[in-house]
C-alpha cells in the first residue's frame, strides 16, 4: 500500500473532484438558465484546479499556464454567449425557466 502523498496535490485533486461533482449535480437540478451558466462556470473552475494539479505534479509550469489561459478565454466566451442567449430568451418568453422552452417539441 502506497502511503506517500503530497498535501498540495491532494488539496488540488480533492478540490477538483468536489467542485466538479457539485457543479454537475447542480446542473442537473437547477431550472434557471443563468443558474445553469453559474454551474457551468463552476465546472470550468474545477477543470482549472485539475490543470493546476497536473502542472504541479508534472513541473511544467509554462505549459500549464498556456492551457489555463486558453480555458479562461473559452470560459469568457461561453459566459458571454450564454448570457446573450438567456437574455434573448427572457425577452421573448418573459421567463428564465428552461421548462418553458418547449415550442420545439414535436
Amino acid at each position, binding site marked *: *500500500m502506497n502511503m*506517500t*502523498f*503530497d*498535501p*498540495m*496535490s*491532494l*488539496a*488540488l485533486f*480533492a478540490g477538483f*473532484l*468536489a*467542485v466538479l*461533482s*457539485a*457543479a454537475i*449535480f*447542480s446542473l442537473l*437540478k437547477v431550472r*434557471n*438558465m*443563468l*443558474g445553469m451558466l*453559474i454551474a457551468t*462556470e*463552476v465546472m470550468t*473552475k*474545477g477543470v*482549472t484546479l485539475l490543470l*493546476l494539479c497536473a*502542472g*504541479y*505534479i508534472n*513541473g511544467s*509550469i*509554462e505549459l500549464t*499556464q*498556456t*492551457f*489555463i*489561459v486558453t480555458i*479562461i*478565454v*473559452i*470560459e*469568457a*466566451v461561453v459566459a*458571454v*454567449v450564454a*448570457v*446573450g442567449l*438567456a*437574455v*434573448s430568451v*427572457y425577452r421573448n418568453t418573459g*421567463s*428564465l*425557466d*428552461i421548462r418553458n422552452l418547449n415550442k420545439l417539441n414535436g
Partner: protein
Amino acid sequence: MFEMIEMVEMGIFCASVALAVVLLIAALMQRRLMRAAIALAAASVMLSLVMYQLEMFWAAVFELSVCAGLITVVLISASSLTSREEQDAAAAEPSTMGLVPLVAVGMGALAAAAVVVAGVLPEAGSLAVGGASQSFRDTLWLFRQADILGQLIAVLAGAFAVVILFKEGDKQ
C-alpha cells in the same frame, strides 16, 4: 527554520484551495444571481492566489482580470436585465440545493481517500520532463500556435453571437 516556513506556506496554499472550493459551492447554492456572481468572483480571486503561489503569474493575472472582472460584470449585467421575481421563480428547490455541499464533501473525501490510501497521484516532480524550460512567451507563441488560433476563433464567434443575440427585433 526552513521546514517551518515551508509548512506555513503549505498551510496557506491548502487554506486558499479550501476557501476557493467553499466559495464555488456557495456560488452554486445562491438563489439570487447577484450573490452567486459575487461568490464566483471571490472564488476566482482565491484561485488566482493559488496560481500565484504555484508561480503561474500569467495565469493568475488572466484569472484575476478576466474571471474576477469581465465575467462578473457580464453576470451582474444579466442580473440587472432580468427580474428578481423571475430569478426566484426559476430557482431550484432549497432542499435540493442543500444536497450540493453533501455531494461535494462526499466526492472530496472519496478523492482524498483515493490519494492517501491507494496513491492514485504520483509525487510532485516525479513526472518532470528534463531539458531547459521554455518561458511562457516561447511556449505560447512557438509551441501552442493552434491554441492561439482557437482562441481567436472563439472570441470572433462570441462577438458575432453577441451581435446577433442582443440585436433588437423588429417591433410589430
